[in-house]
């Protein structure tokens, strides 16, 4: 677990990953993210499901909790980073977390003999691993194309690339939407399967699992929502808006080989998203092999729906949904053409009459910066975990000095795990010393804590 976890990038063993991945050339990083981490997952599956005998249920719980935390923290990192490849590397950590949630769930189900549910969870994990390979490779190719075209990976230097990298922007957009788990693309299909597996958890006999799994479900949903924010930020800032540097303004389109590779991978994302039944059936032999049970065959169902358990429980038909959305959009388009104005005129966006925001402006001061975009999330979510902190100094009236802004955050793994325990010891000693000076509220807190500890003890050991 420790070995596979550190290889795959589970928190808190993740620290190497975001440093190594961006350092490699793009196609190698694509390979690293897409394949190498999967090797670890493969090893984990092999060891835990096949080699080690029957697993205890709490193994599943441990994997679940680690996976859930990894997913959320990974994507939070990604949201705060400015370097495209580092963002992608952190997002890999998130996806590994999601895959481990699926694996943990499968372990737990298996330990309790719920083989069908275990097969569903395992399939979801494998499906997600497959999807991740597709869209993450596309994204790394795209990142490579950006780096090649502009010479930078810093989001703060990019912008407006969609106008110059017209073709490669499209697979990039598809991959971004897929990794953000949006229907009808493949990322959503695997996440939907995972959630369906989570919905089966009440049947688990252990109370701890029953209570933990929905909480993990909340973490999965949180990670998915963060991922959407993260990739809106990545795509929206790199490709949309106006260029933030000369290099971005003059970026050439990437070469045909990269383009076609990206398009091919993105097309696979779309196909896997629209026809998830086929992919699920592809993984059926694996669960058959490992668990002796397989998820019901999906490809024969009418309208290519997927229906993991029973029809009355849930079903999802991405093809039909996509068709509906397309038809509705076309209907809207056609009826507006028929009944409304067809003219589109174009004028510069209002820049308050200032040259620096006008059509001829060189600087793009009014556009959101990547760190500005992430600031609300950083302030709300990262303030405690990452000790994210913004410091503003405004000189008093009449002082001509510039106003200053600094923003900082730290990786809690470094701060809490890798810094020596000595400081903790110091702190404890210090605290012991202060026990005698407790306040009323702290006395209360101690009584309260003692009560809670007692209750926990009753809950777990009685």
């Amino acid at each position: 677990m420790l070995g596979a976890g550190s290889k795959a990038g589970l928190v808190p063993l993740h620290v190497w990953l975001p440093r190594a991945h961006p350092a490699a050339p793009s196609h190698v990083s694509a390979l690293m993210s897409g394949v190498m981490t999967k090797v670890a997952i493969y090893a984990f599956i092999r060891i835990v499901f096949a080699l080690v005998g029957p697993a205890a249920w709490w193994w599943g719980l441990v994997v679940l909790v680690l996976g859930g935390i990894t997913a959320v923290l990974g994507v939070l990192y990604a949201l705060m980073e400015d370097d495209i490849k580092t963002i992608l590397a952190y997002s890999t950590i998130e996806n590994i977390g999601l895959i481990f949630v699926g694996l943990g769930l499968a372990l737990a189900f298996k330990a309790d003999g719920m083989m069908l549910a275990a097969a569903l969870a395992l399939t979801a994990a494998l499906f997600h691993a497959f999807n991740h390979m597709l869209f993450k490779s596309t994204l790394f190719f795209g990142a490579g194309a950006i780096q090649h075209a502009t010479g930078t990976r810093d989001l703060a230097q990019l912008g407006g690339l969609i106008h110059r990298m017209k073709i490669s922007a499209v697979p990039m957009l598809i991959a971004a939407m897929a990794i953000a788990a949006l229907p009808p693309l493949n990322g959503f299909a695997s996440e939907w399967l995972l959630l369906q597996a989570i919905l089966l958890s009440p049947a688990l006999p252990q109370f701890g699992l029953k209570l933990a799994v929905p909480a993990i479900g909340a973490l999965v949903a949180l990670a998915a929502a963060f991922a959407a924010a993260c990739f809106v930020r990545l795509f929206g800032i790199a490709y949309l808006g106006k260029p933030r540097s000369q290099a971005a303004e003059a970026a050439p389109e990437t070469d045909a080989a990269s383009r076609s590779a990206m398009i091919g991978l993105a097309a696979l994302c779309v196909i896997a998203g629209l026809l998830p039944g086929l992919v699920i059936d592809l993984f059926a032999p694996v669960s058959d092999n490992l668990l002796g049970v397989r998820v019901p065959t999906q490809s024969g169902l009418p309208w290519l729906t997927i229906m993991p358990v029973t029809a009355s429980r849930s079903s999802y038909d991405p093809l039909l949904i996509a068709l509906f959305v397309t038809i509705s959009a076309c209907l809207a388009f056609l009826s507006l053409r028929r009944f409304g104005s067809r003219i589109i005129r174009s004028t510069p966006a209002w820049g308050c009459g200032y040259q620096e925001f006008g059509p001829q402006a060189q600087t793009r001061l009014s556009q959101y910066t990547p760190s500005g975009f992430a600031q609300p999330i950083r302030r709300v979510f990262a303030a405690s975990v990452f000790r994210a902190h913004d410091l503003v100094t405004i000189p008093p009236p009449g002082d001509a000095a510039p106003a200053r802004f600094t923003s900082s955050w730290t990786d809690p793994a470094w701060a809490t795990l890798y810094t020596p325990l000595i400081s903790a010891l110091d702190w404890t000693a210090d605290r012991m010393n202060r026990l005698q000076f407790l306040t009323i509220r702290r006395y209360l807190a101690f009584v309260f804590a003692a009560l809670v500890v007692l209750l926990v003890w009753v809950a777990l050991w009685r």
Partner: protein
Amino acid sequence: MMVNSRTWQAAASDLATGRSIFVALWAEAQDDGCIIHLAGRPQGSGEVRLLSLAAPDRLFPSIAQHHPAASLMERALCDVHGLTAEASPDPRPWLDHSTPYLFKPVTGDGVHQIPVGPVHAGIIEPGHFRFSVNGETIIRLEVRLGYTHKATLGLMRGHMIDHAAQLAGRISGDSTVAYAFAFARAVEQALGIKAPPRATALRGIMAELERLANHFGDIGAICNDGGFPLMNVLTAALRERVLRLAATCFGHRLMMDRIIPGGVTTDLTAAHAKLVLTTLTDLRGQWARLFELYEKTASLQDRVVTSGWLDPMIAQRLGCGGYVGRASGQDFDARRDACYPPYDTLAITVPHLTAGDVDARLRIRMAELEQSVTVIRTLLATMPPGALCTPLPDPANLTTIERNDARVGHALIEGFRGDIFAHVRVHRGRIEDVMLRDPSWFFWPALEAAIEGNIVADFPLCNKSFNPSYSGCDL
């Protein structure tokens, strides 16, 4: 008093140390260069003193380098008269919009700007706000005005007093009574005449009615910008009743041109006086319920308490008057401290708080509403009979001395925003030099300072709680 450069600098350092409070800075064009006037008052007093410095080569030692409150006025007068302030910390133009404008510097990673205005979505005056932000965190706010520079003071110079009085009443429409009052008092002082007692009582009533109407409007608008529109529609109804009362009693909703140098133009009949009393009693009952609503709406309290905190130190340094200063611990009210009729016979208590947030500025307004009602009631109860206006001396019938001597007068009048300063020099019935200073000159820099630690979304709320006048600074 004409001074030399050394005394000038000494006066500036007096301002910097807080021994005296800055009131106004303006310039007057002469045949040979300019004369710069500096008005100040001792700390805690309403007695304004003037210093004048000749600037023959269009150069003068900057006041702003010692005292930041003077910065905007210094920049404005440099633009109007083509002067240069030596060693000025901020030599950028203020009214002159012909050149590109450099906003104050900001350093740090990931900083971007949000430009707002001068065209706004609401019906407000033009002003440009430049926010340097990182996401929601405001790193710096800078205000740029001067979009409606009307050269009002220039239009007044050389004209007859009655014409100038009309212009004075139009400097900031919401304070038309206060401006007319200030101008009239300055002219009366210059000409050495006194308005009849009945006229001063009526002036007081009008000034307080204006205060009532504007405070109602402000309280509603603050709550509206805090996302509580209900309060706005309710106070708008109260404001409307005050305006209609003014229209009925004085013939004009805003009571424009009702105060003239020498007195007032409209009398208040006994029936109308009764109407004022009954309306006020009725309004008072209504707003008591509104304030209860304000205090009990926890979601609204959550918005206003602690938002837009203005440091009392900064309020003091900038010489902020009115509700802005009084909410940040400044105990100054021209009605009490400059002691002009009709307030000289009344006991004015000045409410002041130290919290300095939006809530405090709103509570000051509420306290002032109560006080305005008391003042109006007292004035109505003790209304003296008599003439409405003392005629101004006819320029044709002046003595030789009077004909050759220009006469100077100034006044400090408490408008609804704060103390309005008026200065005139009259010569043969014409205005030679004039300055009318709005309290907003100090609110704008205070707003820029108060935004520290606030987020972008709270700016409209903070701004509304200051409610500075654009027009008053675009003279």
